[in-house]
């Protein structure tokens, strides 16, 4: 499948300085990877003589800017971050991706040590869209279960081993917080904004045996096996979450967790570095994959990876491709580990730098082990079948919000959402 895995014929003609003097424009989403890149790109310039102009926007604004420029066929972007699992189909049909395979096969444009097969196979597969290689992976991420070991110990409550344990655990934590004058600590926090909560919701649904789709590929939110996960997610937010949870995204969840205001959450592995920067969190937090369903035995969380793509409208695709190679090289990936970016290259993940870094703190080791598990068992599908993915996720998130707000029962909200989702198929 991965024709792009083929290495170029040889090093003949390849020269990092071959595009010296050109300038490439980079458009990135605000992400630990791009923040780290801000400091590192001067090394790219030193190595290649290629100047870079980098714009970093928050995710929504990033997408708006990208869509505007790409739809105008603007050559003002050469490299951009992409999430093929979310928008790969739409971007490809719009003709926004340059196919990287011809570049990868061009010996004059590709470093001999690029070694595409070194990238995690799952991540590389997700970067293949309609037979094209549309990006190189820059990270691997998925939501992880974080819990405050000290609070659990103080309350004499065991960590949840199955998804079914979450609700009773939250109840016990609530009672314990009241009894021990920990009024500022809420048992749970999670994403409540409708467009982004699917990322966390998916494991809730999957692990209790549910699915976003029916066996024949129709929207399946209203299925009897899917409803319990939906209800549980909403109930935790409503009865055990912080006030105002429906406006919360990872920013607020990380802030609350960092400040020691919540006892457990299910948030992105990407936020690990930000979380453990808060005092004491590196020592009092536990991290692991989301608990599996006890009755179902299923454990199927989300795992995704951002990539970097070359614009189809770029006038400097070879220079842009050079940036991709440098930014995803083992040397750079190893240095990004400090920023909490999980390396997508197998050699780096299993390499001495990453291992030494994880060995420094038990929680880092737990984080790395969790990522290995999530990469093995995870899915990048977290909505019902459609190519209008952002809209579908918004509809599903809207159903959760209706349940939390008490505007509809889980059954009614889910069935109404299914009717809307069917229109997107």
């Amino acid at each position, binding site marked *: 499948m991965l024709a792009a895995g083929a290495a170029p014929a040889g090093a003949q003609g390849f020269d990092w300085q071959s595009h010296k003097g050109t300038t490439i424009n980079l458009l990135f989403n605000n992400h630990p990877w791009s923040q780290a890149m801000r400091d590192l790109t001067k090394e790219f310039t030193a190595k290649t003589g290629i100047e870079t102009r980098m714009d970093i926007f928050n995710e929504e604004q990033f997408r708006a800017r990208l*869509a505007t420029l790409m739809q105008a066929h603007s050559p003002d972007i050469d490299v951009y971050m992409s999430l093929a699992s979310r928008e790969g189909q739409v971007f490809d049909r719009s003709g926004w991706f340059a196919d990287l395979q011809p570049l990868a096969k061009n010996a004059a444009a590709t470093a001999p040590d690029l070694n595409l097969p070194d990238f995690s196979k799952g991540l590389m597969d997700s970067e293949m869209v309609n037979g094209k290689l549309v990006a190189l992976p820059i990270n691997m991420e998925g939501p992880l279960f974080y819990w405050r070991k000290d609070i659990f110990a103080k309350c004499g409550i065991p960590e949840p081993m199955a998804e079914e344990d979450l609700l009773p655990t939250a109840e016990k934590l609530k009672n314990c917080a009241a009894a021990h004058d920990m009024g500022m600590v*809420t048992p749970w926090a999670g994403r409540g904004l409708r467009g982004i909560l699917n990322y966390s919701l998916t494991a809730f649904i999957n692990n209790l045996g549910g699915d976003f789709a029916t066996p024949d590929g129709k929207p399946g939110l209203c299925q009897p096996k899917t409803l319990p996960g939906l209800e549980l997610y909403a109930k935790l937010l409503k009865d055990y979450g912080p*006030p105002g949870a429906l406006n919360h995204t990872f920013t607020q969840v990380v802030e609350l967790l960092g400040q020691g205001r919540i006892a457990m959450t299910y948030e992105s592995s990407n936020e690990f570095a930000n979380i453990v920067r808060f005092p004491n969190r590196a020592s009092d937090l536990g991290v692991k994959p989301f608990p599996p369903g006890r009755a179902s035995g299923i454990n199927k969380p989300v795992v995704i990876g951002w990539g970097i793509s070359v614009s189809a409208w770029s006038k400097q695709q070879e220079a842009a491709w050079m940036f991709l190679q440098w930014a995803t090289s083992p040397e750079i990936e190893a240095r990004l580990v400090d920023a909490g970016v999980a390396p997508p290259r197998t050699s780096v993940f299993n390499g001495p730098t990453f291992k030494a870094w994880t060995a420094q703190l038990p929680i880092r080791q737990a984080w790395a082990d969790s990522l290995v598990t999530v990469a093995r068992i995870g899915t990048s599908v977290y909505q019902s079948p459609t190519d209008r993915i952002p809209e579908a996720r918004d509809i599903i998130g809207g159903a959760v919000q209706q349940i939390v707000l008490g505007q509809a029962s889980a059954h009614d909200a889910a069935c109404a959402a299914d009717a809307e989702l069917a229109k997107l198929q």
Partner: protein
Amino acid sequence: MLFAVAMIVFPFGYALVLSMQDFVFGHDAHFVGFGNYVRMAGDPQVRLALVLTVELWLVSLALQLVIGTWLGLLLARMRRGRGLARAVLVSPFMLPPVVVGMMAIVILDPSFGIANWLLGLMGIAPRLFLASPDTVILTLAGIDTWQWAPFVALIVLGGYLSLPSDVFEAAAIDGAAGWRRFRYVTLPLLAPTIVTAAVLRSVDLLRFFDIIYITTAGGPGYASTTLNILAYRRGFEFFDIGYATATMVALAAVVFGTTLAFARIRRAVRW
């Protein structure tokens, strides 16, 4: 003329053309005539967005006109320090909306905002502010009023200072004071100024977007999804460009209609 065509007529004409297409990124665009407008008429989200847009506009405008007029008249009476007060009043609307939005998040967040902490000190139960569908519109109106009521105040101050003083002297001789003087002398004389302020604020309020987007992104639920937010999300998040453009054209029509209505009101209150 060329500038007007290039900068106004062409973009608006292009928007009209787009609004008549079924155009979703990744799919072929095709002409649907008024299909998007018909779809809007039957779309409950558009109806809700229109109601919320009007609600936010009316609540904010009322608050800003009342508070702005009061502040303006208060400034007019100041004998000393008016320049300083004016400089202080200018500062909120000099702030970029992003800053105001971020400030609102930090202050009003129910979990770590200082607003609830201050309410707690006064023995008042915590509020959800932007996080409750029941209070989000009022809170957004409050934020916008904090930023823009001073603007109305400065307009009113300018209008008041330009009024003929003999009218007020005659009113004083006739015994008009306090509320009666305000109701029967000051307010009618200031009416054209206040209507001008209302027009300026209405155009802005109907297009109100940035602070809503930063603080709630249209939530919780759809409780602050105004027409602007709805169109933005449909266009830039769901890539449904034709429908989003139709929504924006409809909003532009509302803004244009409102401005025309105010122009008529202004003529009616002219003295």
